[in-house]
């Protein structure tokens, strides 16, 4: 088991190397001169040259890549031309906000999706089944940013019970930083005011992001539950008198979770890569906003850094899913 994890982690290295080459090449070969942007429209050729030298842009591209790579392993991810700060520091600043948003969205989707899917399967063609089916169709079809706007209209403009955007009021003090997740940090420090405020800010963007995974989890869970309910072993369990509750929540649930799990893993990465629009609509200071800004200003170090980080998280979440898969499906574990 531990050897398997180590092997999988080692496999990450060549994948990330390959990815870094591709992203680096694309970012560097795109038209446009980042040095010119950084130096400003009125810069003299001398200033431009010094800026190019400062960022190593005057060297041949393969050499630039080599410099980048050696820096990468030492924690030097280059400097953002735009923020003028080390990319690594920027990512450390913006990553928790994105992770918190994605985690909250997935939590909502899982906590609601699994029981709803289960219930829809048990009371097939009942009222609940029709409602969830309609909502999930909507959830899959509706773009997230549009849903975000709808939520703002409803909860902010009409009901006026939640803040419009941001992660925390600018004039206020966020909770003491431990993990960078405001909700967890305020819990850890017992700062109930900060907890309430950060939850209120988190609610709408997380909801907007959760609808699509929620819809998929419900559909997946419903389908796999229906399939499991028809298995012979469920008949055996019923024939031997086990209660429907025990059969459903223990013996069916674990079997039905296996296929749902794969979807959950895929969605984590899908959400991570797709936070941009939601972060823009809600002005959420996360990696998505950071990356957008970087792309618009042809600031390619942050673009590469963000891409690598998202890839790492994606690969790690797939690893976790594979491990969980073994928990739910013993046959996989032993092979």
């Amino acid at each position, binding site marked *: 088991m531990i050897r398997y994890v180590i092997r999988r982690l080692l496999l990450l290295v060549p994948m990330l190397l390959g990815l870094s080459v591709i992203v680096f090449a694309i970012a560097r070969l795109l038209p446009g001169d980042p040095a010119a942007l950084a130096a400003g429209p009125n810069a003299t050729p001398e200033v431009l040259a010094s800026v190019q030298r400062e960022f190593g842009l005057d060297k041949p591209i393969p050499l630039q890549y080599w410099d980048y790579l050696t820096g990468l392993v030492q924690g030097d991810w280059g400097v953002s031309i735009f923020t003028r700060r080390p990319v690594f520091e920027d990512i450390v600043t913006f990553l928790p906000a994105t992770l918190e948003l994605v985690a909250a969205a997935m939590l909502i989707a899982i906590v609601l999706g699994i029981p709803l899917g289960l219930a829809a399967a048990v009371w097939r063609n009942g009222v609940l089944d029709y409602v969830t089916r309609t909502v999930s169709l909507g959830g899959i079809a509706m773009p997230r940013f549009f849903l975000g706007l709808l939520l703002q209209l409803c909860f902010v403009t009409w009901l006026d019970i939640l803040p419009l955007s941001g992660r925390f009021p600018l004039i206020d003090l966020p909770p003491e930083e431990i993990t960078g997740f405001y909700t967890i940090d305020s819990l850890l420090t017992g700062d109930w005011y900060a907890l309430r405020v950060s939850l209120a800010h988190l609610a709408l963007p997380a909801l907007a992001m959760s609808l699509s995974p929620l819809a998929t989890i419900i559909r997946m869970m419903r389908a796999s539950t229906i399939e499991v309910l028809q298995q012979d072993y469920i008949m*055996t369990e*019923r*024939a*031997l*008198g*086990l209660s429907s509750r*025990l059969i459903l929540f223990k013996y069916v649930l674990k079997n039905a979770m296996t296929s749902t799990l794969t979807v959950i893993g895929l969605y984590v990465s899908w959400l991570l890569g797709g936070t941009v629009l939601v972060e823009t609509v809600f002005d959420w200071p996360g990696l998505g906003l950071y990356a957008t800004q970087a792309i618009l200003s042809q600031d390619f170090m942050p673009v590469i850094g963000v891409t690598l980080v998202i890839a790492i998280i994606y690969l790690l979440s797939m690893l976790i899913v594979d491990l969980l898969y073994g928990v739910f499906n013993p*046959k996989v574990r*032993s092979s």
Partner: protein
Amino acid sequence: MSLLEITNLNLAMRSYEGETQILHGIDLKIERGEIWGMVGETGSGKSLTGLSISRLIPAATGRYLAGSIRFEGTDVLNATEREMRKLRGRKIGMIFQDPTTNLNPAFRIGTQLVDVALHAAEHDPSVLGLSGNASRRERRRAARRVAIEMLGKVGISDPIERIDAYPHQFSGGMRQRMLIAMAMIGKPDLLIADEPTTALDVSVQAQILKLIHQLVLERDIGVLMITHNLGVVAQLCSHVAVMYRGRILETGPVRTVLKQPSHAYTRALLAAIPTVHTKRGELRGIGDIMAEAG
């Protein structure tokens, strides 16, 4: 009072094409100590008869047009679901055909055995050898002990270690032994086995049949052994019911029915089975077989 008494059972099943009557006036009476074989070709309604006894056919798919099933006096077709659960696992044990699909693959063998034992003990604490006021913990521990015992009894070696293994780690024959353990752990009074050896190798079939026979003799319970193999019936059963297209053609002690079949269909069945055919005239009763085995 008979252990099981089925009277004039008529069952219709629903499907997309509509409702079709499947069982036509089934009559069957099983006493303790009797091993009934139910034979008949595929689709003749054997399985649905077996499932009806524990009322396991969902109301959405099956409807009883007439008849009654009485188990130790309980009116099965009109009992509440609660009353039925008291019978299932505790009074009526069931074994199904395919051991590869009838064990839940995601759980350890012990988990399923323990749950069945705990369920049976809810209605009869003596299943675990405990008094009525044992704590949850005590009951769990006792259930595990009984499960290990039961695994040993059905011929699993190293039951203490194997109880924590998963179904896929066992061969088909071993899995069928585990299903037998699950069916017998609640100390049922009636065992219904629906083609328990059909999916197994011929060499394993004989072992499983012998095992079932041993357990049955030990406890003096009634058995309904569903099979399409008259050889099995000849070897194992004391009585036989021959089914054909949802009807019981003839019933009676094995010796009588197999020696002097009164029905042309039974004669055809007998003729179709070479082992029985060649042995015709020297069919042996169950006592002889056990004398030989012991």
